[in-house]
Every structure is written in structure tokens, then in C-alpha cells.
């Protein structure tokens, strides 16, 4: 569907006193520089977020960034990016999800929606292609409703909604659309702070493709490739198959990262066959996708990350209990990784006698998830995430609060995946497996995942970050990556035939380095220093049963090396030369003086 070269700005104010909606044109250069998805979202966040803004303040923007490939017949492209300043990390946050809502949002005739302001009471924001028909509708009756219930209450609408957690500004609340979640970083709390329970979109706009015939042919070709062996794992097994594999390779985090295995028998129970036996199984697919990787067990969608976080990380090994917890996160609108990570941290605090709560490893998570979403008593403290809870508990608990920049770690053990250790430390979003696919490098032949290399490891991290920036800006599903042999060349072709953007592979590489640079620049503006690019003390000081630790000094040296390889200073600052090389100099005047004068 290409591009509309304009965005929709929405300022929400009191119900009945008007909703300001305006289309704002964007220059072609913005798309060449930032493409779409997370790239365009980062640009718009930089442009519209006041420096130092409270993420939950009305003036903090919530951005729904669409992408050039969205709405085309190309498989796995029905995706959007939700971008904001995270209330969990105070750094950039971006989450992707696939849905018919994304397809419908594109038909508003814009490439992004930027929402600021706050309603006077809980409301639904209805967006229509005809701006005069956009409106706010009070929805007190939907307070506490699940995203699915909101969708059912709005038949015929394409809906993105928050659950109770978002309404209560839980710092890791998600935004759901068609049952998929933009999960990480707390975008649901940002929407909740605006008192917007749901967004509906309606439009019929359809921009011209630059080369419709080429798109149709490529769509057929890509669909055929998407059904090949390269996607078989996702289609036939689902990512939940990782649990058993990772257990065997000793990279499965268990008991709040105190162990790397739960034992073969337990891992098998949580593997696809075990889940199927326990709850039954159906397979579906995202909107506009030919892969069909959406595996549901007992009606609940389950991915590896949710399984790891709500299972082994919290020492829960009953399939039914894990599925119930995942269903609760869906219903309440919670990021499963941060929910599991925060609970696992609290469990360890209880085990060590640092918290007098009736909570232990292996407990049923559902009542605790309900408390978090309601911010009820102890749930209110958990709703702040593990970093803030650790600061409150004190007594040295910070060393085992497993987060980076405030974002709880995904399901990869840094001590036995040392490229991942660096990737998690430097990622702009915090502990991140989506914008930094460093785990892929760790599992390649020729890479010793138990021993980082000062020179080679940072380069591997940069490569996976830039590759992720490419796929997340187009937006193309990462599960298709194995079917794309020449990602840079093919992506340049896709952008040319859809949006008419003239970028060759080299220019596209530069664009992705620019996107990564801008995300970093945003963090710098919001107070980032290189001291944040590290791991919790546990990973340096507590060897695994095989003796593995992360070498603190080597990690510190690699962080500096990573920034030098990116062309920044060793302190991670973008000097004038680096800004010029990345094509970001025009944005630099918006830097605060200290950053603008970075040596």
C-alpha cells in the first residue's frame, strides 16, 4: 500500500470540548531516513515528545507507527509499532503487533497516529478517515473490561484496547489488538494515563503502489518461501519448542535466573507435546500471514517468552498453571515477560526473607497478576516493576532484580550466551531480544557463546541490531528472516516497488544505523549515561553450576568498543562528526546543551 506521506495528530482533551485532529504532511526525506515502523516511530517520538517529559503526562505522545509494506499483499506485513517513552524505563519503548487493526489503521490514509492529551473520563477514541467524524466516547461501563470484552462491545470495529492494568497505569501494561499485544515497556499505561480505553479506526484510503505488478509477483514468491522449511519451526512447533532445547543447552532462565535448566522431565511437560496433551491445540495465523505460527493451547495463545516468564522463571511447571497465567495477562493487558520477571524477583525476595509476603516459587500466578492489574495492596508495589521494587526493598536485592534500564530480561541466560549479554546491556529499549537479536549470533557455528571477544562480539551485536531495525521498520515479521537470503537487497527492492523509495542496500544499511542512532539519541536526551549499559550484579558475581559468569571488565570494555564501532565516542556520545555521518545533525539542535556539546 506504500505511503501516504502524512500522519494524523490527535490531541485528546475533555469530552465534549473537542478533539483536535489534524493531518500533518511528512517530507519524503523522513521516509528515506527512517522508513516506517520503529524507525518512523523513533523520529516522531523525537519530534513530538518534550524533552524530559513524564511518560504518563498528557503531553507525552503515544505513537502508532505504520509501515510501507502494511496493507500490501506481501505476507507477514500486517503489523504496527507502538512507540512511546516508557513509564517502566524512562527510555524509548517500541512494541510491534500484527492485526487487522493495523490494516484498518492504514486505511485512515496516514502513516502514523500521534496521540497527546488526556480525556476527562475513561473514553473510546474513534478515528475516522473523515476528520470531522473523529470523536471521543465516554465508556465508564467498560472500566475493568478485558481487551476482548471491549472488542465484543464494539462489533464491526477494529479495536486496540487496554485491560485493567493499563487503566491503572501498571508500568508494564500492554495494548492489545485482535488478541495480539504491543507488550514491552508499558505503552498500555501511557494510553491509560490518557484515559483512553480503546481506539477504533475506520477508513477506505488506499495509496497507489509504485509498481503493483512487481508487488503482486513478489507477494506470490514470498508466500511460497514462507511455506518452506525455513519457517517450519514456527508453523509446526511454535516458539514454545524452545523450552526443551534451551533447557538442554543451559540457556533457559529458571528461578529468577538462579538456574539454567529445569530438568528434562519438566521441560518436556512444557514442550509442545506436553502442552497439547494437557490442554489441546489449535493453530491460527496473524492477519495477512501465510506462516500461521499462532499456537493456542486450551484456547490460550502461547509463545516461548510468555512460557519461560510465567513458567520456569517462576518455577511453575504445570502446563495448566502456565496457560492460566498467560490467559490472565491477555485478559488484564500485561506484558508477560515483565510480569513474570517482577514476580520471580519478588519470589526470591520472599525466599530470602526480604519481603514478608505469602509468595513462593511455584505458586499460582493468577491471583498475583490480578493484584498487579488492580494495583491492589501488594499488587501496587509489583505494578512498578522489578527495578523500583528492588529500590524499595533494598538490602542488596538490586543485585538479583533481573532488568536492564528497568526492563525485565527475556528468556536467554547471559552467562551462557555472552553475545546476548552485551546485546542486552546496550539495547536502547532495555533488556531486549526484539531490537537486538544477539541470541542468534550466540548459536552460530564458530561463535563461542561462553566466552565473549572484545573485538568480534560488539560487531555481532551491531549486525543483529541493524538487521532488526530493518525488519522492524519495513515492517516484516522476523519469523520470515530465514526465507530471505539477501535481506538488504531484497528490502531495498520491496521499498522501491511499494513506496517508490529509492534506496540501495548500502543506503538501507546507513538508514538502519541512523534509526539505531536516533533511538540512542532519544535516550541520551532523556538522561541516559553509559553507566546504564550493564547487567544486574547476579550475572557478574554468581557463577552458574558450570562456573559461568559474565566478566564485568570485559563487558565494560565491549560496551565502549560497541560505541566506537558505531562511530560514537567510547562513552556512547554522538559528537558532531557522528551526527553528520548518521544524517542526524539536523535534529541535534533539539539536544540539551550538555549533549549537544558532547566531546
Amino acid at each position, binding site marked *: 500500500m506504500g505511503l501516504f506521506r502524512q500522519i494524523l495528530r490527535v490531541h485528546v482533551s475533555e469530552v465534549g470540548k473537542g478533539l483536535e485532529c489534524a493531518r500533518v504532511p511528512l517530507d519524503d526525506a523522513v521516509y528515506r531516513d527512517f522508513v516506517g515502523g520503529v524507525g518512523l516511530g523513533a523520529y516522531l517520538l523525537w519530534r513530538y515528545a518534550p524533552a524530559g517529559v513524564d511518560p504518563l503526562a498528557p503531553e507525552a505522545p503515544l505513537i502508532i507507527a505504520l509501515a510501507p509494506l502494511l496493507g500490501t499483499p506481501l505476507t507477514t506485513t500486517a503489523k504496527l509499532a507502538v512507540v512511546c517513552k516508557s513509564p517502566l524505563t524512562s527510555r524509548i519503548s517500541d512494541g510491534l503487533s500484527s492485526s487487522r487493526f493495523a490494516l484498518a489503521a492504514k486505511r485512515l490514509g496516514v502513516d502514523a497516529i500521534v496521540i497527546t492529551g488526556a480525556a476527562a473520563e475513561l473514553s473510546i477514541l474513534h478515528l475516522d478517515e473523515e476528520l470531522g467524524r473523529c470523536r471521543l466516547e465516554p465508556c465508564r461501563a467498560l472500566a475493568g473490561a478485558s481487551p476482548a470484552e471491549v472488542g465484543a462491545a464494539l462489533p464491526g470495529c477494529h479495536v486496540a484496547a487496554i485491560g485493567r492494568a493499563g487503566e491503572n497505569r501498571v508500568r508494564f501494561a500492554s495494548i492489545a489488538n485482535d488478541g495480539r499485544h504491543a507488550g514491552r515497556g508499558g505503552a498500555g499505561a501511557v494510553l491509560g494515563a490518557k484515559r483512553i480505553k480503546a481506539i477504533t479506526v475506520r477508513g477506505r484510503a488506499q495509496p497507489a503502489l509504485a509498481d503493483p505488478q512487481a508487488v503482486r509477483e513478489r507477494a506470490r514468491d514470498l508466500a511460497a518461501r514462507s511455506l518452506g*522449511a*525455513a519457517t*517450519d*519451526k*514456527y508453523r*509446526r*512447533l511454535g*516458539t*514454545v*519448542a*524452545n523450552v*526443551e*532445547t534451551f533447557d*538442554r*543447552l*543451559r540457556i533457559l532462565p529458571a528461578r529468577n535466573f538462579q538456574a539454567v535448566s529445569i530438568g528434562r522431565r519438566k521441560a518436556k511437560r512444557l514442550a509442545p507435546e506436553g502442552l497439547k496433551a494437557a490442554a489441546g491445540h489449535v493453530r491460527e495465523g496473524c492477519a495477512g500471514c501465510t506462516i500461521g505460527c499462532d499456537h493456542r493451547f486450551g484456547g490460550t495463545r502461547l*509463545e*516461548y*517468552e510468555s512460557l519461560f516468564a510465567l513458567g520456569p522463571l517462576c518455577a511453575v511447571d504445570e502446563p495448566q498453571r502456565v496457560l492460566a497465567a498467560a490467559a490472565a495477562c491477555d485478559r488484564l493487558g500485561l506484558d508477560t515477560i515483565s510480569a513474570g520477571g517482577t514476580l520471580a524477583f519478588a519470589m526470591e525476595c520472599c525466599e530470602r526473607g526480604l519481603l514478608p509476603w505469602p509468595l513462593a516459587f511455584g505458586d499460582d500466578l493468577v491471583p498475583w497478576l490480578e493484584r498487579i492489574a488492580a494495583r491492589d495492596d501488594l499488587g501496587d508495589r509489583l505494578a512498578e516493576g522489578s527495578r523500583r521494587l528492588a529500590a524499595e526493598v533494598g538490602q542488596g536485592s538490586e543485585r538479583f532484580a533481573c532488568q536492564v534500564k528497568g526492563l525485565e530480561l527475556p*528468556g536467554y541466560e547471559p552467562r551462557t550466551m555472552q553475545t546476548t549479554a552485551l546485546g542486552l546491556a546496550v539495547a536502547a529499549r532495555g533488556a531486549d*531480544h526484539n531490537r537486538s*537479536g544477539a*541470541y*542468534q549470533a550466540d*548459536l*552460530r*557455528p*564458530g*561463535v*563461542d557463546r*561462553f566466552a565473549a571477544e572484545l573485538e568480534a562480539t560488539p560487531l555481532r551485536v551491531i549486525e543483529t541490531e541493524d538487521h532488526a531495525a530493518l525488519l522492524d521498520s519495513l515492517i516484516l515479521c*522476523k*519469523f520470515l528472516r*530465514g526465507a530471505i537470503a539477501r535481506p538488504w537487497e531484497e528490502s531495498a527492492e520491496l521499498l522501491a516497488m511499494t513506496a517508490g523509495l529509492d534506496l540501495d542496500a548500502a543506503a538501507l544499511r546507513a538508514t538502519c544505523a541512523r534509526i539505531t542512532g536516533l533511538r540512542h539519541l532519544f535516550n541520551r536526551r532523556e538522561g541516559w549515561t553509559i553507566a546504564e549499559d550493564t547487567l544486574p550484579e547476579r550475572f557478574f558475581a554468581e557463577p552458574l553450576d558450570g562456573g559461568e559468569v559474565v566478566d564485568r571488565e570485559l563487558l565494560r570494555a565491549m560496551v565502549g568498543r560497541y560505541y566506537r564501532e558505531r562511530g560514537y565516542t567510547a562513552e556512547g556520545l554522538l559528537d558532531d562528526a557522528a551526527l553528520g555521518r548518521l544524517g542526524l545533525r539536523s535534529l541535534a539542535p533539539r539536544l540539551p546543551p550538555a549533549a549537544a556539546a558532547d566531546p
Partner: protein
Amino acid sequence: MPATVEVELFGLPRLYAGAERYEVPAGTLAEVLAALAEALPGLSPAIICDGRPTELVRVALDGRAMIEAPDHRLHGGEVLVLVSAQAGG
């Protein structure tokens, strides 16, 4: 008694092979994988092709280093862990 290598299969390799583990005579990696593919024909050609692991699979020696060199010598007693190449989730 001839030296053998134990092979454990996870993810896609297990799915294609229809087996969780198998024992094959020691030799080079190429010989071991060829013997495995002959014994478990579902592995060929998607997982093992001409005695080499395809891009869909990783081979972890004793669950640690990923190996792929066809002439890598396995003397017997080792465990080869075959896993899906894609790790994301």
C-alpha cells in the same frame, strides 16, 4: 565394541526424524551425520544434506560449541545435540 556417538534431537530435527535420540558409529561429523540421515531418513534433505547440516539446524557438541566442519573428528563418547537454527520467540 565400536566407538559410538550419541545424537539427541530437539525441535525441527526431532520433528523430521521422528526420534528423540539415536546412536551412530564415531567418525567425522560428515560420516556421523550421513549415518544418522540413513538411519532416520526423514532428516534428509531438509536437516541433513550430503552429510552436512543445513541452514535449518545447529549441531552442538556436548551441548556446547556449535560445530559444522565436515572433517571434525568425533572419536566416540561425544553427544551431538541437533537443534533448530531459529531461536527467536
